């Protein structure tokens, strides 16, 4: 096939698919054929291209022009004007100068998402052409000692991207000796407003598989599980294809790349339980049981799946591993902050101009993310607050916009950084209603195993409902905080320990709004 002079990448994530991405891609191919451009310009399907909420999105290379909201009716114009004559179709262009600038900046610090939006996620060849499996090949070829792999990851300073940032190398080094060990990739992404792991799974599944293989090599495990949310149909299909293709190519199996190292990966599909994002609940669930948390210690590194030593890492964490092995800890440390090297993937949503998926260096403050990448608050309105980290997250007001976000920052940032969800609220949004929604979520998702959480989540919703409808008494706000505090002190797992963060940050920052809501409807004597 002749060398193509250009590529049109069509995003085929869930959003784009439901806006008709497949039809647009097919129509593009036909139009190129018709215009005699088929040999010069290739249409490729790819994962997320960093645009959300804009229907079918395309990126045209080499120019890097991004289009959004493309329909079949627009295809002819794009082909004729842009691809044939070189004049981008301004009307569809995603556009403003700051956005393009942001795109350029953003691409420079893409580690995890380096290939997302550039390669066809269903193609092993394209993944390999972009460097997939080079790191594991290097380890196997040079017969690097597993201890050296752990040491390199430790030196890199990589910290877990699922929750509060436990050092990954240290976690690996805590894995107890044993004949049989497991690697589990936690892809049970349930925190509302978070879908970064889904987009990594759907955009570059081979990178995740390689990360798991390296973890397996380092700790001496030959079996890996990916626990994916049952609702993530597309992720499951793509990942399964990647596993099958890698198996056929000899990249997974009893002899990886003809070496004595064996590694197998299996997908486990969840069934709708937020609590299974907690690592011990997840393990219970793989064992076919109710997903209720275990008491820690012992930690999974000592007693995990089927009682064997098990490493549980988040998708984004594992996706960071291959480049660290390939390019070294020193390279990785060039990004981010001293205590939290590397980048962070965020989903920025809500009342912003450009919702979407971004990857920026650790330590980037919220204001930069909001203004430069999110394009500011939608419709020129004023910023009111951001909910960081989903339901188990923190409400940040205007004053918190300039705090560098990393794992060493103030607790309300550090504790919630992992999930990477940023939900922006404009001046018209109600914090009282937001908190109510969050508390309802916890009531629904409490697993019911321990009493403080089972009873506490119900009490929180009742109190919040009273405040919201103005039927409350004046000390209900204090009661809300004290119930959440009691839950934090006495619950078994992070679910019951979490509500205090949204409750406290919301009330501390917006107390007046809560009080006036009570007063507006009239307070019970």
């Amino acid at each position: 096939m002749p060398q193509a002079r250009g590529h049109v990448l069509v995003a085929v994530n869930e959003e784009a698919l439901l806006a008709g991405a497949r039809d647009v891609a097919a129509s593009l191919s036909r139009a190129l054929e018709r215009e005699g451009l088929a040999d010069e310009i290739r249409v490729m399907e790819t994962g997320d291209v960093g645009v959300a909420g804009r229907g079918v999105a395309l990126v045209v290379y080499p120019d890097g022009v991004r289009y959004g909201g493309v329909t079949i009716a627009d295809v002819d114009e794009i082909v004729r004007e842009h691809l044939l004559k070189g004049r981008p179709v301004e009307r569809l262009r995603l556009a403003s100068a700051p956005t393009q600038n942001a795109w350029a900046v953003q691409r420079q610090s893409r580690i995890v998402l380096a290939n997302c939006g550039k390669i066809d996620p269903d193609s092993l060849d394209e993944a390999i052409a972009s460097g997939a499996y080079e790191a594991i090949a290097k380890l196997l070829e040079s017969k690097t000692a597993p201890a050296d792999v752990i040491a390199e990851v430790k030196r890199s300073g990589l910290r877990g991207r699922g929750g509060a940032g436990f050092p990954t190398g240290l976690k690996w080094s805590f894995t107890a000796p044993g004949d049989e060990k497991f690697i589990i990739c936690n892809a049970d992404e349930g925190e509302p407003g978070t879908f970064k792991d889904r987009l990594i799974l759907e955009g570059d599944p081979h990178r995740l598989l390689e990360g798991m293989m390296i973890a397996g090599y380092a700790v001496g495990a030959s079996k890996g599980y990916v626990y994916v949310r049952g609702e993530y149909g597309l992720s499951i299909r793509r990942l399964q294809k990647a596993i099958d293709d890698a198996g056929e190519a000899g990249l997974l199996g009893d002899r990886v790349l003809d070496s004595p190292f064996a590694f197998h990966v299996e997908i486990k599909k969840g069934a709708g339980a937020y609590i299974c994002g907690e690592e011990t609940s997840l393990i219970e669930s793989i064992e076919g049981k109710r997903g209720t948390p275990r008491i820690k210690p012992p930690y999974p590194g000592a007693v995990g799946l089927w009682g064997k030593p098990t490493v549980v890492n988040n998708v984004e964490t594992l996706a960071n591993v291959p480049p660290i092995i390939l390019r070294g800890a020193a390279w990785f440390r060039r990004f981010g902050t001293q205590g939290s090297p590397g980048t962070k993937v965020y989903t920025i949503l809500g009342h912003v101009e450009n919702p979407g998926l971004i990857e920026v260096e650790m330590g980037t403050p919220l204001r930069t993310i909001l203004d430069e990448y999110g394009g500011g608050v939608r419709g020129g309105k004023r910023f009111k607050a951001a909910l960081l980290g989903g339901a188990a997250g923190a409400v940040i007001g205007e004053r918190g916009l300039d705090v560098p976000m990393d794992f060493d920052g103030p607790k309300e940032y550090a504790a919630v950084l992992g999930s990477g969800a940023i939900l922006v609220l404009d001046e018209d949004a109600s914090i009282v209603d937001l908190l109510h929604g969050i508390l309802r979520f916890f009531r629904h998702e409490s697993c019911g195993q321990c009493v403080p959480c089972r009873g506490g989540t119900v009490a929180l919703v009742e109190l919040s409902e009273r405040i919201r409808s103005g039927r409350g008494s004046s000390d209900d706000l204090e009661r809300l905080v004290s119930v959440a505090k009691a839950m934090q002190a006495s619950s078994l797992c992070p679910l019951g320990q979490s509500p205090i963060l949204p409750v406290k940050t919301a009330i501390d920052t917006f107390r007046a709004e809560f009080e006036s809501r009570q007063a507006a409807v009239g307070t019970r004597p």
Partner: protein
Amino acid sequence: MKELLEKYPRSMESLLDILHELQDAQPRHYLTRDALRAAAEHVGAPLSEVVSTATFYSMYSMTPRGRHIVRICESPPCQLVGADTLLGLLSAQLGVAVGGTTEDGAFTLETTSCLGVCGVAPAMMVDAELYGNLTEKRVTDVLADVRRRDAAG
């Protein structure tokens, strides 16, 4: 049912997958007593243990549901842009509360936690299909569409 089960190793590890598949194979999207018993026998666990697992997860149902399951997302990003109003609309149009099934057995209305398509919030799923950027009109159209497809067989 036998054929379906044989694909899976006889271990508790297969239980969630087995339950998913048995439920999907049932036109009313639930786990029948027979299905639960067959699953228990296959994995070699007491029925009580299998029921205990099945009742924990929100994606499994122990009672018959509609031919179509409408699940609207109730997480904060969707709520922020009007999911509550749409839930009220769905409930009124279908004439059932959350968890209820329409009299003709066509629809069951459920809520779901985050579907991970917050960029097009508010969002819902009807069976395996995702719908985003929902408005009152779009919700009405989607329901009508499903009904039309049903009528066409």
